[in-house]
């Protein structure tokens, strides 16, 4: 146990508070180094072909009142050799948590995750995507929130007040994985005249019935996903684009069914708004795990997911796509895992992406991580074609303390 009772904070010695007022603290986190190499010629000559970066994500945690109150602080920073936008700092978490019987209250900056699928996170809307950090949408920015959670025999209910909006991050002028158009993130346009100070609300209910997990959620506020409009100076297009954040209402539904080696998953959303074309979208499929293949300790898991979106391919990449991936877990001392997969557009059949993610432990507390993405498809009607020249290989080394 790494928790240390800090006697300085153990006010018991002052003789007016009980011993349970002792504050325990914990310090942990990671530091990483990353190299990225792009194998194809850039679409814009200003863009880099390789980039190196250093990043850190420390975390401090304090708890008191027998662990019923705690404070978590987790900042993040990256320094990038080529892209000014990718050099960035964010407070991933800074929140106070109070736990009481069957309810919890969190106030501050935090992250929540909604959903069950692997290839696309449709219902997961509370936190903004830190798109410059991870191409696959898995990294999120810290979101200011008040979160009230309760657990009753009818399920788990989370209610959110989200008082401040975070803009999506995008690669800068020299950066990669941005397509041919430079996104001007300094001049976003909002539907609400309160701009990023619009107060958003969200609620999520979930419950398990034996082998079935169900969740329903609703979000009302500033869309995390922007639309893009051409940037005009004195009525003349500059060639850059500007993100536009409309007001939306989104309903989401999640289902997961567990049956022996199978996990069946589905997420669906309905998004409406005055300044967007209303649409429905769906992602669903299964994860099938074969334990101990060929009498070894290796597990092989198959992830198959289909994504459908009523918007067309010029607006969203996952409008009619099938993804198949194999997850290999060696279950060795170094916890080696490899995920290898293919996403295929069923409409623009030239459009596909192949990816490999692999990681293993090095020594006692370091990880070596390999990521590779290869893109194909150049039909201009398909938004994915913006990535046709963005094939890359990335190696990261992370040290945990």
């Amino acid at each position, binding site marked *: 146990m790494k928790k240390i009772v800090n006697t300085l904070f153990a006010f018991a010695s002052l003789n007016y508070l009980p011993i349970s007022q002792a504050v325990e603290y914990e310090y942990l986190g990671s530091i990483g180094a990353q190299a990225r190499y792009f194998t194809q010629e850039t679409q814009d000559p200003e863009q880099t072909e390789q980039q190196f970066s250093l990043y850190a994500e420390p975390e401090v945690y304090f708890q008191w009142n027998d662990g019923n109150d705690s404070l978590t602080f987790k900042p993040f920073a990256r320094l990038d050799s080529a892209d000014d936008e990718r050099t960035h700092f964010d407070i991933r978490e800074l929140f106070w948590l109070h736990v009481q019987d069957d309810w*919890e209250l969190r106030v501050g900056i935090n992250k929540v995750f909604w959903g069950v699928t692997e290839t696309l996170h449709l219902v997961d809307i509370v936190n903004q995507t830190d798109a410059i950090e991870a191409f696959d949408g898995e990294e999120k920015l810290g979101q200011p929130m008040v979160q009230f959670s309760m657990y009753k025999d009818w399920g788990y209910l989370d209610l959110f007040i989200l008082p401040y909006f975070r803009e999506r991050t995008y690669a800068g002028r020299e950066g990669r994985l941005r397509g041919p158009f430079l996104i001007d993130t300094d001049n976003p346009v909002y539907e609400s005249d309160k701009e990023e100070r619009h107060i958003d609300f969200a609620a999520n209910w979930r419950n398990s019935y034996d082998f079935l997990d169900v969740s329903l959620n609703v979000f009302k506020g500033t869309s995390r996903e922007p639309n893009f409009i051409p940037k005009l100076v004195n009525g003349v297009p500059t060639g850059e684009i500007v993100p536009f954040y409309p007001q939306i209402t989104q309903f989401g539904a999640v289902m997961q069914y567990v049956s022996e080696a199978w996990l069946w998953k589905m997420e669906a959303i309905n998004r409406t708004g005055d300044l967007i074309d209303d649409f429905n979208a769906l992602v669903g499929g299964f994860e099938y795990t074969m334990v101990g293949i060929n009498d070894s300790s290796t597990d092989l898991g198959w992830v198959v997911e289909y994504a459908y979106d009523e918007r067309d391919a010029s607006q969203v990449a996952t409008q009619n796509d099938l993804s198949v991936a194999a997850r290999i877990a060696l279950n060795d001392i170094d916890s080696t895992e490899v995920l290898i997969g293919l996403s295929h557009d069923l409409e623009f059949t030239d459009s596909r992406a192949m990816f490999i993610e692999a990681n293993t432990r090095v020594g006692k507390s370091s990880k070596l991580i390999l990521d590779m993405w290869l893109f194909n498809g150049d039909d201009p009607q398909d938004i994915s074609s913006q990535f046709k020249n963005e094939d890359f290989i990335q190696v990261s080394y992370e040290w945990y303390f």
Partner: protein
Amino acid sequence: MLKQYKPTSWLSLLLAAGLALSAASGQVNAETTNKGLEIAKERKARDKGWGDSESTSQMILRNAQGDQSIREMRIQALEVQGDGDKGLTIFDEPRDVKGSAFLNFSHINEPDDQWLYLPALKRVKRIASRNKSGPFMGSEFAYEDLASFEVEKYTYQYLRDETVNGELCWVIESIPTDKYSGYSKQISWIDQSEYRVQKIEFYDRKQALLKTLTFADYKLYLNKYWRAHTMTMTNHQTGKSTDMIAKEINFKVGLSDTDFNQNSLRRAR
């Protein structure tokens, strides 16, 4: 060991009667089955009532070349009457999995419910129930080896008496009732003085000896419950082994049902 716990006399009588019968008649199989079942029932009955516990454990993983790696974790457990127990495991080492937590509801007649919390993604992932035969944290322990012992999970056959670790033991063959168990059978050595498991041999689905688990450093808690502080699992087919060492165990620490749900899993530290 001031208060020795004696087997209930009716059971001894029954066992003696069973032995006499089995020697005298052709009903060997039924009698040895019955004797095996009675020993399993008494083993479970003696462990009833421990309530809840919190322990700090270390796993030492060794490969055939002798390289080793350490896992550290804290385990909270809650006894559930009439069903399998609930468990929450919080990982501390290695540092890259620090903060990950695993919630398990064992069941007697249906697959366990399992969830894993991944702190980097803040995501609770349900685990397909079929994975019980898979390795726990890369160790030689499978998930099913760490689940609570429930009488109904096996059918039993008493084989013989034998001395192991200086204790006279009943040797029992247990065949899992769950078709997804990774084992075709287990042979257990249960000591006749305290009904403690001293050794288990695990046979793979091809009936070959796969692993041996030995129990050592038993300590008595609440004057009633024996817990082994060292469990060593050796895999005979790969040469790998894992020591599971309980550094500290505390009983009746005040855990309740509300400490074992997806919200408590999310905030486990």
